[in-house]
């Protein structure tokens, strides 16, 4: 895999921005996180200038190029994983364009300015691994659906303008999603304190008789949009190879493959940051009269870290390539990549602390943040156990999780 000149330029501009604008403020902002809406929007506005975002103008070039998407996930996470999460979890706002007139009226101007923040509510307090059976319900009443239930761990929930909620559609006896916009509906959120990803908000949401227009049901939005002459790629701004996977691997699974590949690159970004600092420290810090990097056991640690980083990056790239070509292995490779890189980045960031010794544990250094951010990775978007079961199903065609 080789980046085009245009993709390389995109990466260079992004790196430059992150180093000059985000790196100097990240420690302070992460420590005092989660970000508030206005601060997150400041970054999102800047990133939009670089071609990263969800508005109708930016989304097709950002999501429409798998490499731009994964470069962003890696580079942003190298500097600040929480910012990557805040950005990526905003994805559901792309559906505003196809929602009810009520939601469009309220949200489209914001979306077009690149300021409509989104959020995805799948996980429920009763368990996040088994997503096939949501307890949140959507009851049809006239031209509305009425939502009841609880969601938890929802990224961006506090300040999101729209939330895409998975619920059991009682009228169809099937699982569906519903776009709730904050201007026409209200719900309670409760912040969750957590170990890592401290810069981004995760919250519990309670839906108590929350009414949304019937046209805000995701399957209806697709139906209406296609009826109006749109293609799948107009609705979900993925490359054609990925929307083709909607047919071969179901829309939700293909979307997960895309997001999990992004998560794998996020893990790579965290590892890169930890490795770079560990290597610099190893040549700088001296014990027994020589740099610690000259001690064989420290070299072994550096070897382990670098191998973990390189194998992770290669596997993540394989997953990205499979999305780019619409390969039938996309689900297998993206789950493998998410599972493997998430676990590996826990080891790599832990090793980075080891190379730093006591300094690595100090909260005024970044090493402990890398480790805390890394430790979160094996849980969201399907735990490592679930990724293993998906890979098992893809390999054997026998499901261990239905």
């Amino acid at each position, binding site marked *: 895999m080789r980046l085009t000149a245009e993709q390389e330029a995109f990466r260079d501009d992004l790196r430059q921005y992150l180093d000059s604008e985000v790196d100097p403020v990240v420690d302070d902002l992460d420590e005092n996180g989660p970000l508030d809406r206005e601060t997150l929007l400041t970054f999102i506005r800047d990133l939009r200038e670089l071609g990263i975002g969800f508005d109708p103008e930016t989304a097709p070039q950002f999501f429409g190029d798998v490499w731009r998407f994964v470069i962003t996930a890696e580079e942003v996470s190298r500097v600040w994983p929480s910012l990557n999460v805040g950005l990526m979890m905003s994805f559901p706002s792309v559906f505003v364009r196809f929602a009810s007139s009520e939601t469009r009226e309220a949200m489209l101007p914001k979306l077009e300015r690149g300021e409509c923040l989104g959020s995805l509510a799948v996980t429920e307090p009763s368990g996040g691994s088994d997503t096939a059976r949501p307890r949140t319900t959507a009851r049809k009443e006239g031209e509305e659906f009425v939502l009841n239930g609880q969601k938890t761990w929802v990224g961006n929930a506090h300040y999101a303008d729209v939330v895409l909620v998975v619920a059991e559609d009682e009228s169809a006896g*099937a699982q569906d999603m519903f776009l709730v916009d904050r201007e026409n509906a209200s719900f309670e959120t409760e912040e969750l304190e957590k170990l890592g990803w401290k810069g981004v908000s995760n919250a519990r949401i309670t839906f108590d008789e929350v009414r949304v227009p019937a046209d805000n049901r995701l399957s209806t939005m697709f139906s209406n949009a296609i009826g109006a002459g749109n293609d799948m790629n107009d609705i979900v701004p993925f490359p054609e190879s990925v929307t083709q996977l909607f*047919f071969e691997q179901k829309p939700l699974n293909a979307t997960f493959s895309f997001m999990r590949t992004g998560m794998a690159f996020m893990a790579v970004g965290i590892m890169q940051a930890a490795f770079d600092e560990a290597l610099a420290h190893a040549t700088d810090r001296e014990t027994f009269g020589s740099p610690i990097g000259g001690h064989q056991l420290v070299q072994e640690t550096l070897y382990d870290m670098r191998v973990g980083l390189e194998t992770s990056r290669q596997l993540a790239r394989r997953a990205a390539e499979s999305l780019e070509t619409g390969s039938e292995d996309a689900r297998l490779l993206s789950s493998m990549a998410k599972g493997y890189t998430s676990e590996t980045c826990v080891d790599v960031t832990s090793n980075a602390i080891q190379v730093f010794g006591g300094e690595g544990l100090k909260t005024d250094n970044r090493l402990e943040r890398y480790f805390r951010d890394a430790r979160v990775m094996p849980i969201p978007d399907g735990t490592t156990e679930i990724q293993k079961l998906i890979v098992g199903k893809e390999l054997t065609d026998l499901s261990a999780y239905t």
Partner: protein
Amino acid sequence: MTDELARRIEASFEKDDDQLEEDLPELLDDIDGQADELVREHPALVSRLLGRMQEMDIAEFVSENPETADQFQELLWAGVRVLAENDDEVSEQITEDISVNFEADDCPMTGHLRTDADAGTVTGGSGHLDDSDLTITGPADTLVGLITGGVDPIQGFMQQKYEMDGPVHKGTRLAPIMNSLSEKAATPQ
């Protein structure tokens, strides 16, 4: 003339579902060969018959009466063809040649559909085409619902009620055609 047949179909509407299910194999047998004529002469009746059939467990019916599966589909497709014939709303939607095979996964029922962009027509029938652009697989009820309007094609797909194989853009172009067809099939003429 299909008046006598129409009277018998009419009479069977008076019966409950079980009785209608019992009568259906014989009725379908009699309709065989004159489905187009029946639909032309008594379109509302055919809509009603298809509507009643949609309420039945089609997979069970086809499994118990395998020989009637083809006849049922011939009636279904004759209904669609005739109701959509010369209909501007339907032909306007047909902007591409698309061929589709249908396969029930809960009973031995296969069918197909073909659109012709130049002629602006849709034709269909039982059995598979040798090579089709798309293959739709799902429960028989859902497949029939797709044709008669009980199941919205995109919504049903997104809710994973059936699976579709083939190029996505053909699938998305098929959906509005199916929608306009099923609108016709559901509206008594």
